[in-house]
């Protein structure tokens, strides 16, 4: 009885845990060339791999909502005003990315390659949501005429090497982690 009741509560606790991990990830900067990489998107993708599409997306919504409510979880603080930053689109992408990752992995048999591909899909989803926001913001609020090229360069190209590394790293640690989570928490993907 207790075990069955705790299952559901465990799910919520792990969702909260991943929201907290993403928050912590925004505070950890790794100095890699050419730009410092934060661990944020690493945990976003990991949420998709470990929690699956629905819970992964919920965990990242929890992260974004708590930031918008004013808890200092975004890099540089947090308030409703973050909607007005050009990078807010990426935060919206964080909510969608675990969905893509989880959905792809649900249909495939587990292997490192598939985890890697799933993470690439997730990364793609983050940019798919984030880049138009950035470009539109630059075009209509900042009024930069070369907004599309500029956002591709400054918003995507310089981050791609770091993103590849993150995907590869997740592929390495995904298997031991899923095994661990399943036996520890009784969670199903």
């Amino acid at each position, binding site marked *: 009885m207790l075990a069955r009741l705790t299952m559901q509560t465990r799910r919520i606790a*792990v969702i909260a845990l991943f929201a*907290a991990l993403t928050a912590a990830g925004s505070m950890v900067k790794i100095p890699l060339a050419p730009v410092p990489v934060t661990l944020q998107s690493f945990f976003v993708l990991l949420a998709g791999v470990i929690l699956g599409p629905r819970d992964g997306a919920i965990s990242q919504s929890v992260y974004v909502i708590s930031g918008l409510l004013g808890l200092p979880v975004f890099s540089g603080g947090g308030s409703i005003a973050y909607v007005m930053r050009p990078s807010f689109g990426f935060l919206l992408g964080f909510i969608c990315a675990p969905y893509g990752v989880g959905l792809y992995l649900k249909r495939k048999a587990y292997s490192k390659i598939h985890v890697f591909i799933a993470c690439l899909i997730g990364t793609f989803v983050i940019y798919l949501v984030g880049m138009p926001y950035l470009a539109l913001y630059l075009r209509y609020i900042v009024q930069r005429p070369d907004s599309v090229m500029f956002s591709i360069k400054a918003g995507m190209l310089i981050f791609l090497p770091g993103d590849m590394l993150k995907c590869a790293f997740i592929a390495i640690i995904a298997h031991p982690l899923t095994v*661990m989570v399943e036996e520890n928490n009784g969670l199903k993907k």
Partner: protein
Amino acid sequence: MLDPRVKLLITTLGIGTGFLIGSTGTLIAFSALCFCLTFIAEIPVLRLVNGLKPFLWLFLFTAVLHVFMTPGDKLTWLPYATRQGLANGISVGLRLVCAIWISTIFTLTTSPSEMVGAMTWFMKPLRHVRVPVDEVALAIMLAMRFIPVLFEEADRTLTAQKARGIDLESGGMMNRIKSVVPIVIPLLRGIFRRADDLAVALTIKGYRPGQVRSSMREIKFRRMDFLALALSTLLLGAFLCL
């Protein structure tokens, strides 16, 4: 103390008004009002200025680009700048500053649990389309509690692995990445265990998923809230009509 729901509503309306105001003159009056709010809320101005910091460069950049990129009558005292551009730059800059000013006042005068309470109330209708509103609310509170735990656990794992002689500094790129694995896995294992403990504790203390929860501090809509809401709606409406 106002009802957090009312505060959230007024904040949103205020930000919206700031963006919809037409003339620069009205906008300056609106900014003055926002500034006065700081003193009513008894917040030190310096703390608010700190809240603006992450946005500062963005605003300056935006305003300056507007000043120089807008076509129109040339200014004599500043090369390339135009009169329309200057007006544009000032109005865009003021709008953004007002929006952040208002939302920072909201953040500084409302406790996190009050904010979560207000958010849950506004999201109630979403329950009908099967959005797990209460789960999200609980998860936000738990996530807040988890952040310090994460750093504590990270510190402990790092120290433990260093004591076992792990080497993070030497070797090539690939080697370094590989040497992170023995830190990440035990770290995640540790924090998953903490999440598990928390779930058990919650269950034992009577938390049942899906059941309606009561709150230690109930939010109540008082006469004061009604007055505040009416007054601010009138005020914001007046700004829009001017």
